[in-house]
């Protein structure tokens, strides 16, 4: 444990409201040099957290957005065979065709490993890829090294990146994978926390608007039969929309007159259902 690392403590960032529990989990994960797996409903700020950590620790952030068709090797490095083939046929580049290393490009994990400084590596939505991806990644994260088969070279991480992994899935990841991570589940913020979050984003917000919009938001979330519930992101956009409208009066919200529902509900059925319920005054 170097002194430098111990001094790197995460306490929060300008645009991210952190609770103490999560802060201590992040600090422990960093001290143990273990990846931190974050789960939670969409819109609870899993991805934002990595951005916040990078900002507060002043480390560069490397984001690996996992895609369903992704193979692990894509995240590590790419051997750009097409360029090499092209160069070998037309030979008009400065690269040395006989040196394969010229055609190796680092993927996101590779970039984090070879960076000069300690980085924050965000592996976003790992559940999108199939289980092979997770299993293959185990060794890489465990050993902090990987081989480039084409040139028979091992890339070792110069500094262990701070690894944040997020997952939306309600299903668990594979056991061996979990065994190598620390785990935290971010619950959906309570109204009190939500007010803090809004206050961070809109420092000059009218108190009445804040109160009424948060109340309306949690009521809308409680409606039954909604497929995609609005989350923090939607609420923030909604508040932005409300403040941008010069004709809007916060009092309206309390009476059940809720404008810009389209900002909160992204599925047409949900929107329809909400409108219907609001018309019937079932909610307010």
């Amino acid at each position, binding site marked *: 444990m170097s002194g430098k690392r111990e001094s790197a403590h995460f306490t929060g960032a300008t645009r991210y409201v952190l609770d*103490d529990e999560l802060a201590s989990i992040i600090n*422990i994960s960093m001290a*143990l040099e273990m990846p931190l797996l974050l789960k939670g409903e969409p819109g609870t700020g899993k991805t934002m957290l990595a951005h916040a950590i990078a900002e507060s620790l002043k480390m560069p952030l490397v984001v690996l957005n996992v895609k369903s068709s992704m193979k692990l090797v894509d995240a590590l490095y790419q051997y750009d065979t097409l360029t090499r*083939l092209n160069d070998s046929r037309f030979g008009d580049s400065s690269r040395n065709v006989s040196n394969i290393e010229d055609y190796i490009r680092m993927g996101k994990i590779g970039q984090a490993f070879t960076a000069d400084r300690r980085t924050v590596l965000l592996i976003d939505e790992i559940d999108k890829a199939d289980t092979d991806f997770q299993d293959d990644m185990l060794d890489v994260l465990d050993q902090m090294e990987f081989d480039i088969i084409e040139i028979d070279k091992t890339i070792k991480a110069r500094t262990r990146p701070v690894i944040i992994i997020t997952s939306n899935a309600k299903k*668990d990841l594979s056991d061996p994978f979990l*065994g190598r991570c620390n785990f935290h589940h971010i619950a959906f913020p*309570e109204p009190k926390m939500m007010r803090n979050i809004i206050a961070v984003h809109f420092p000059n917000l009218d108190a009445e608007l804040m109160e009424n919009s948060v109340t309306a938001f949690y009521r809308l979330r409680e409606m039954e039969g909604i497929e995609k519930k609005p989350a923090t992101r939607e609420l923030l956009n909604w508040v932005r929309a409300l403040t941008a409208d010069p004709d809007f009066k916060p009092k309206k919200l309390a009476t059940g007159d809720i404008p810009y529902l389209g900002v909160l509900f992204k599925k047409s059925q949900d929107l329809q259902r909400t409108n219907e319920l609001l018309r019937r005054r079932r909610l307010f």
Partner: protein
Amino acid sequence: MFIDFFYTLKNVGIPVSPTSFLTLHRALRTGLVNSLNDFYTASRSILVKSERYFDLYDQAFAHHFEGTELPDVSGVELDDIARVMLDQWLKEPRALAEALGIDESELNRLTPEELIEYFKERLKEQTGEHHGGSRWIGTGGTSPVGHSGYHPGGMRVGGVSRNKSAVKVALDRRYRDYSLSGPLTRPMVGEALKRLRNLVPVGPKDRVNIDETLYQTMKNGGEIEIVFERSLKDRLKVILAIDNGGYSMDPYISVVQTVFDYARSQFKDLKTYFFHNTIYSTLWGDSARFRKPKPIAEFAAADSQTRLFIVGDASMAPYELMVADGSIHIEERSGTPSIECLKFLADTFSHAVWLNPMPEDMWNYTQTVKTIGRIFPMFELSIDGLEKAVHFLMAK
């Protein structure tokens, strides 16, 4: 250190591994864990790898450090029972008044909170000598009672824990809604069904296979040969048959249906049919089981690779299953006993499962469940059960 705690966790059923226990000790050595609060968060994030066990963890933690009772069924279930009782009260105030032994008019004066309190008192008095103290709830037919942790208001979980001690936090049991026994939610089922993929190449050859292109090009001595292939698409057909008669099935129908609709984009074809209790010669395309009959004989011509999901509690009077013309509906008189119809379906579709919303340990008490279970592989309509069902369907 904390070896007892580790075994407490293990004993309550949280999958904890010795490696993670060692990691916890490494964490303790870093100097970051200075209080019970820190220990609570640190050991949870290191030892417990799923939010579904957070609730159990909270209970075990409170037990170990504060000496509270470990999970005790009657205590846990009380809230749920109370809730069901409230529903019952709204529907049939008289029956409830009788069951509680108070006057109906008196009952009507009670607020819901008072009613629950009163009921809890009664229940506490009664435990021991009066084992069936809450039996009337069962006979009332409100079966969601077994479905513990059902929260109509949706998820209700605390977020911040600034001014509370860890034990207090643990006692709060904020993660109750996430525990394994919780209700089946759409995302969960969607997740399980996503595994039902049967990708085969279809469509025009319009995708470049780069690896193959390179290989062929090299083989050609550098003369570029581009290899195209067809893209992958799911060709799986699914038939879903739901028992929507009788209100024992009510809580599940909408979940099951929306979830399959949600997963529809993955299947080539999804058809939903309805039946009541068991299948006779006809399934119905409309939920009222009236307008759109579909004789099951027509399924003989269907693709035998179709996956058939039957969702139902499989509980009925044995004659409904065994006797020709056993249907409780007068218009369903086919002359074939339902069990033959089920066997026909099982023969037609080699990939068929029966999903039962009843908990698995209850199955043995109902004869028809056992009988149907011999015809169709039966799985519990829960996350684990669905997972197993999907695994079973894809295995062949």
